């Protein structure tokens, strides 16, 4: 793998974000609104609980982590969609660029854009609503890593779907995180779910993060096996998503789909 082509993908995204408030604003605006809304909800719930339970870490912390995950996923897929929107596939893939270099460029872009969102969320949640997120201690690192890994996997999968199904399918991939959210127990333990939903949830890495976070906040010990399972699942999902993207790419080259993506632009 060569560094320069990866830098090229990164530089292109930097130019786009730097020159366009329409692109830079959503990096922090929607997550900030989420934190504000859920911050006030937790305040209200705390007032109802009259000190018997603090909703801030469990609810606001969960919102923060879920938003971080969705930002990662959308960071990858949005960077990919920039090439769909500008009909750039022919220019891009008639170069020496490899699929691995291209995807790595999208992933690094996503790290940058989601880091901005994470920082804004942390500042707001801590300064305005008193969330002591760092009370999770060193566990914060593996929690975020698992969510990061699964976000990357889902972003690559979403990009592959758009490549395979055509530009209009972007409307299909945006709601993917919302589709998964009932199964991963962002706000409630998996035990709350019917058995079949629990089964699905156990296949999804974020479930282990949110279960672990609730356990730590409740003062229980964390199941290191559970967290390791989440990490392993996220790693497998990244590999599967990369494999799926490569397969779709080969299909697009074999059938002429990739060439038609650009040819459509002249219609």
């Amino acid at each position, binding site marked *: 793998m060569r560094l320069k*082509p990866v830098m*090229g993908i990164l530089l292109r995204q930097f130019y786009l974000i730097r020159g366009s408030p329409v692109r830079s604003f959503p990096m922090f605006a929607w997550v900030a609104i989420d934190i504000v809304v859920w911050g006030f909800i937790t305040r209200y719930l705390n007032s109802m609980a009259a000190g018997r339970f603090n909703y801030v870490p469990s609810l606001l912390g969960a919102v923060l982590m879920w938003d971080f995950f969705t930002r990662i996923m959308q960071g990858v897929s949005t960077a990919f969609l920039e090439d769909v929107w500008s009909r750039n596939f022919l*220019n891009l893939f*008639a*170069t020496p660029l490899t699929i691995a270099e291209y995807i790595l460029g999208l992933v690094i872009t996503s790290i940058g854009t989601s880091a901005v969102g994470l920082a804004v969320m942390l500042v707001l949640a801590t300064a305005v609503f008193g969330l002591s997120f760092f009370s999770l201690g060193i566990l914060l690192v593996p929690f975020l890593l698992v969510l990061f890994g699964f976000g990357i996997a889902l972003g690559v999968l979403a990009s592959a779907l758009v490549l395979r199904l055509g530009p209009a399918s972007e409307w299909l991939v945006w709601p993917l995180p919302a589709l998964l959210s009932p199964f991963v127990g962002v706000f409630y333990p998996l035990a709350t779910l019917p058995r079949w939903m629990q089964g699905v949830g156990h296949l999804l890495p974020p479930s282990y993060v949110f279960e672990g976070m609730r356990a730590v906040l409740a003062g229980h010990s964390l199941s290191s096996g559970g967290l390791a399972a989440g990490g392993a699942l996220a790693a497998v999902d990244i590999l599967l998503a990369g494999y799926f993207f490569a397969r779709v790419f080969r299909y697009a080259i074999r059938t002429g789909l*990739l*060439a038609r993506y650009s*040819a459509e*632009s002249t219609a």
Partner: protein
Amino acid sequence: MVTASPDDGPRPPYEGASVEVPALTREVVLRVAGLRKVYSQLIAVDGVSFDVHRNEVVGLLGPNGAGKTTTLNMILGVLSPTAGSVLIGGMDLARQRARALAQANFSAVYASLPGNLSVVQNLRFFGLVYGIPELGRRVAELLRQFDLERLRDTKCGLLSSGEQTRVALAKAVLNRPRLLLLDEPTASLDPAAAQTIRTRIRNLAVESGCGILWTSHNMYEVEEVCDRVLFLSRGRILLEGDPRRLPREHGTGTLEELFIRLAREPLREQPLEHAE
């Protein structure tokens, strides 16, 4: 089929070859052998073989749907052939994709550069993707060469057709390609702008030494620019030769008349006969 081009060695056994020109020692930058693309019910390209040499401009001509763009897409690696091989600078595209494509570049009217990046941003972006050394210097050089300095910070989507063509050509020569593919590069230009672009491209072949494969429907342009042409119809090469000599050799007044005759002619198993 008539062959009238130099070569550096044994040519692929072109079907129906009737005239052989003595071989010259010129570097082959593109070798296409037995290229075939079959979709479920359609043979888009059917056993196409040809070479492009250093310093040579080869015109790929044919009516709409003849298989020109399909052939170009296969050479660019964005469409895989059903059979056959593509060698760019001696590198097999199927086995050494990145190394082969590093030696090629292209410009096509249907593949404009991202309109939301400025001229200089596009050149830097593609320069990194191609791994160009001393990129800053190369970009400055191309901005000068293609009269783009005044437009360097203008978004490509805001440029006129002629300006966009110049930027696309600047991008197409960023990596000093040994093989340059141009799909109707002057299609949307006025005659004066088209003339300027033709001169630039012709000079490129002479000065940089690259081989150029050019598609166009403008026969005047083809006669002016191309050293050799390949007539493609229904996915097969019907005729090959010097565009200035072919009309006379085949009993037509102009290249355009020959084009029309070939485009309307049912595909033959036997090659076209020379007009005596």
